[in-house]
C-alpha cells in the first residue's frame, strides 16, 4: 500500500517540475502565422467567482471566431488563470502568462486591485494590458503614465454621475443613503454620484462603507435607514448588494434603490428578490450597456440569438441568462476587431495603436446607439449607458442614452 502513494507523490512532483515551452517566430511573443496567444486572470474560486462567466463568454466567442477561420488566418487561444481574486496571485499568474506561456497580450483580466498590481510590470515589459475588466477611473485617466493599459466598461465615476444626474432631474429633494465598498471602486462611484448631484437640491444624507471581506452589511443598512434617506444607493458587488436588499426589506424600509451595474445581472436580482417575496427590489434603478439576454426586448435580436447559439456550441452547460457572458463576448468582439484593424502582421505596438483610435458604433452585444470610442487624449472606451428599471422580474430600459465626459 505504501508504494503506490509514494509513486503518486513523485508523479505529482514531476508534474510540478515539468516545464512547458512555446516557440515564437514573429517579432513579438505569442504570435505566429497561424496562432495568437493571449491570456488573462479571472477568479474561478474565492469570493468573486461569480465573475468567472466574463472569461467564459469571451472564450466561447473566440472559439466561435476560430471555427470560422480566425482572424487573418490566425486562431486565437485565450488562456485564463485563476487568481482567486487575490492580487498577489494575480501578479504571479500574470508573470506566468508573460514569461512562461509568452502571451502576446494580457486581455480582460478581472478586478481593480488585481490590474493595478500588474500594471507597472506590464507597462515596463511593454506587454499590452488590454480591456481591463474594471471600471476604475485610473485605467482611463492615467494613460500617459501607463500607455500599455486600457479599460473597457463604463467607468465607475461615469456610472455614479449618471445616477446623480438622474436623481437631480427627477427627484428634487431626494436624500440619498450610500452603501459603498471601501476601495477605489466604491469611492469612484461615490465621487461620481457627488459630481452628478452638485448644484441640485439632492443631498447625500449618509454614506456607509464596508470592507469586501465583511460578512454582512446589516448595521450599515440600519444606519442608512436611520439617516432618513429616501434613496438607497448600493455600490457593492453581488453578495453585499443582495444583502442590502434583504436587510432593507427586513427593516421595512422602502427607499428607491439604485443598484450599481456590477451587481445588477438579472440572476442576482432574482436572488435578491428572495423568490419574489422581497418587494424592495421592485423599481430598482441601474445602468445597462449590454443586451441583457433576459430582457424581453432582445428576444428576437440577432446578436442575442448569436449569443445563445455560441453559448450552446462552445460553453455547454453554462447559464445563458448570465449577462456577464454577454460582457465577455462584447469585449472579445472588440479585441477581434482591433486585431483585424492592426493588419496582416499585428505587433504589440500596432495593436496598442488601434486601441487609441477606437470608433466602433456596431458592437452587436452592446446597446444600439452606443459607440466604443477612444482618442489620443481620451481613453474611456465606453462612456454611454441607458438607465433601466426592475419591474416584475426583469429589467426594462427607459429614456435616452446618457453620456459622460471625463473631466
Amino acid at each position, binding site marked *: 500500500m*505504501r508504494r503506490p*502513494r*509514494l509513486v503518486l*507523490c513523485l508523479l*505529482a*512532483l514531476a*508534474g*510540478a*517540475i515539468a*516545464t512547458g*515551452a512555446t516557440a515564437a517566430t514573429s*517579432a*513579438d511573443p505569442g504570435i505566429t502565422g497561424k496562432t495568437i496567444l493571449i491570456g488573462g486572470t479571472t477568479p*474561478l*474560486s*474565492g469570493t468573486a*467567482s*461569480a465573475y*468567472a*462567466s466574463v472569461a*467564459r463568454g469571451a472564450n466561447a466567442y473566440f472559439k466561435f471566431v476560430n471555427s470560422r477561420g480566425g482572424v487573418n488566418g490566425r486562431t486565437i487561444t485565450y488562456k*485564463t*488563470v*485563476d487568481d*482567486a*481574486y*487575490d*492580487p*498577489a*496571485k494575480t*501578479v*504571479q499568474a500574470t*508573470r*506566468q502568462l508573460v*514569461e*512562461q506561456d509568452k502571451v502576446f497580450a494580457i486581455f480582460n483580466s478581472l478586478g481593480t*486591485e488585481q490590474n*493595478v*498590481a500588474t500594471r*507597472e*510590470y506590464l507597462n*515596463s*515589459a*511593454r506587454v499590452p494590458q488590454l480591456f481591463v475588466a474594471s471600471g476604475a477611473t485610473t485605467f482611463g485617466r492615467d494613460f500617459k503614465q501607463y500607455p500599455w493599459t486600457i479599460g473597457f466598461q463604463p467607468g465607475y465615476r461615469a456610472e455614479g454621475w449618471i445616477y446623480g444626474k438622474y436623481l437631480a432631474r427627477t427627484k428634487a429633494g431626494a436624500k440619498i443613503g450610500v452603501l459603498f465598498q*471601501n*476601495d*477605489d471602486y466604491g469611492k469612484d462611484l461615490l465621487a461620481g454620484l457627488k459630481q452628478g448631484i452638485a448644484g441640485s437640491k439632492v443631498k447625500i444624507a449618509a454614506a456607509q462603507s464596508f*470592507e*469586501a*471581506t465583511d460578512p454582512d452589511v446589516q448595521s450599515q443598512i440600519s444606519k442608512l435607514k436611520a439617516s432618513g434617506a429616501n434613496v438607497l444607493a448600493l455600490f457593492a458587488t453581488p453578495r453585499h448588494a443582495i444583502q442590502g436588499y434583504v436587510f432593507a426589506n427586513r427593516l421595512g424600509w422602502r427607499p428607491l434603490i439604485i443598484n450599481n451595474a456590477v451587481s445588477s445581472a438579472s440572476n442576482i436580482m432574482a436572488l435578491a428578490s428572495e423568490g419574489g417575496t422581497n418587494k424592495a427590489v421592485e423599481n430598482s434603478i441601474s445602468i445597462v450597456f449590454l443586451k441583457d439576454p433576459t430582457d424581453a426586448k432582445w428576444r428576437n435580436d440577432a446578436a442575442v440569438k448569436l449569443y445563445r447559439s455560441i453559448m450552446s456550441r462552445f460553453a455547454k452547460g453554462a447559464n445563458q441568462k448570465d449577462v456577464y457572458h454577454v460582457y465577455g463576448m462584447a469585449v472579445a468582439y472588440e479585441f477581434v476587431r482591433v486585431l483585424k484593424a492592426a493588419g496582416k502582421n499585428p*505587433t*504589440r*505596438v500596432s495593436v496598442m495603436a488601434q486601441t487609441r483610435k477606437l470608433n466602433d458604433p456596431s458592437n452587436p452585444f452592446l446597446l444600439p446607439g452606443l459607440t466604443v470610442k477612444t482618442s489620443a487624449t481620451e481613453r474611456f472606451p465606453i462612456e454611454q449607458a441607458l438607465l433601466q428599471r426592475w419591474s416584475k422580474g426583469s429589467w426594462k430600459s427607459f429614456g435616452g442614452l446618457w453620456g459622460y465626459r471625463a473631466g
Partner: protein
Amino acid sequence: MKRTDLGGVLLFVLGAAAILLLPRFVSDFRAQQFAYVGIYFIALLGLNVLTGYTGQISLGHGAFMAIGGYTTAILVSDQGLKLGSHTFSADVKDIWTIPLAGLVAGIAGFLFGFPALRLAGLYLALATFAIAVAMPGVLKYDRFAQFTGGGGGINLFESAARTRPAETTDPITFETISKPIKVLGLEIASFNEWLYYLSWVVALFMLAVAWVLLRGKNGRSFRAVRDSELAAASSGVNLATYKTLAFGISAFYAGVAGSLLAIATTFVNPDTYPITLSIFLLVGVVVGGLGSLWPLVFGAIFIQFLPLWAQEVSKAQGAPAVVYGVILILVMILLPGGAAGLIRRLKTLYKSRLPSRPLSRTSD
C-alpha cells in the same frame, strides 16, 4: 546525539547544494515559483515553532506577514516617511528591510503573546483569527492611508533596478534588449533568479536558526509546554516566557516571509495578505508535518503548487476549490502525519529490513 547532529549537518549541506543548483535545470519562470516555495517555507518554519512545537494554534499568521510586508514596502518606497536618501544604494535597499520587517512583526507577535497567554486551544485560534480578519481594515483605515496607501496599496515595481524584466523589446526596432543585473557585485541573469537565490538563502539561514533554537533545552521546553502545561510548569519551565517567546519568534519568521513576499510580488495591498493565507499556512504546516523542520518544504510546495494543479483539473467556476479540498482530504487520510510522518514511516520500514542496525536514530 553527536551522530545525529553530524547527519543533520550533512543533510543540510547536501540539500543546500541541491537548492542552489536547481535554477540551472529549470526555466526562469519555475525559478520564480520555487522562490515562492522558499518564502512559504520560512513562514511555515515560524508557524511550526508556535503550533508544532509549542502547541499554540494560530490562524492569524497572514497578519504578521502583512506587518512584515508593509514594513518593507513602506521603507523601500519611502511611503509617507520622507527618509530622504539612504546610505545604502537604491539597488539593495530592499534587502536591509528584511530583518527590520522581521523585527517589527516579531515585536507585534511578542506583544500579542501576552493576551494570548490567557487563551488556549479553540479560543486562541479564534483570537488569532481575529487579527487576520482585522488586518485589512486597519491597513485601509484612512488615518494610516498616507503610509499604507489605503486599499490601492503600494507598488514596489522599479523601486529597485532589478525588477525590470531581463528582456524587453525595443518599441521601434523590435530588437530584444537584454539587461543583466548586478547585485552586490554578482551578475544575475534575471529578476526571477535573484528572487530565487534571495528567498532560499534567507530560508536556509532561517532553517539553521530554527534548528539551533529548537534543539537542546529550549526545544525541550517548547515541547513540554505543548505536551502538558502542568507538567512543564512543575518541571520549572516558565510558561509565560516560552509562550510569548514562541509567538515572538514565530511572528519574526512570518515578518521575514511577508517582507520577501512583498519584494517578490512588487506590490502590497490589504488583499495580498488575505485571511485565506493564514489558513493556507496552517494547511502547509499540517501537510509538512507538525513538529518537523525541513519536511515543511513539502508543505510549502503543497500550498504553492496545489492551487495551480487544481486549475489544470478543471476550470469550471468554483471547481479548483473543490479539487483542492478533495486532494487535501486525501492527503490527510493517507498521510495523517504529513510529509514528516511519511519520512518517519519510510525510515522505520528501511530499518526493519535491516535489523542489524541500531534503532537509536529516530530523531525528528
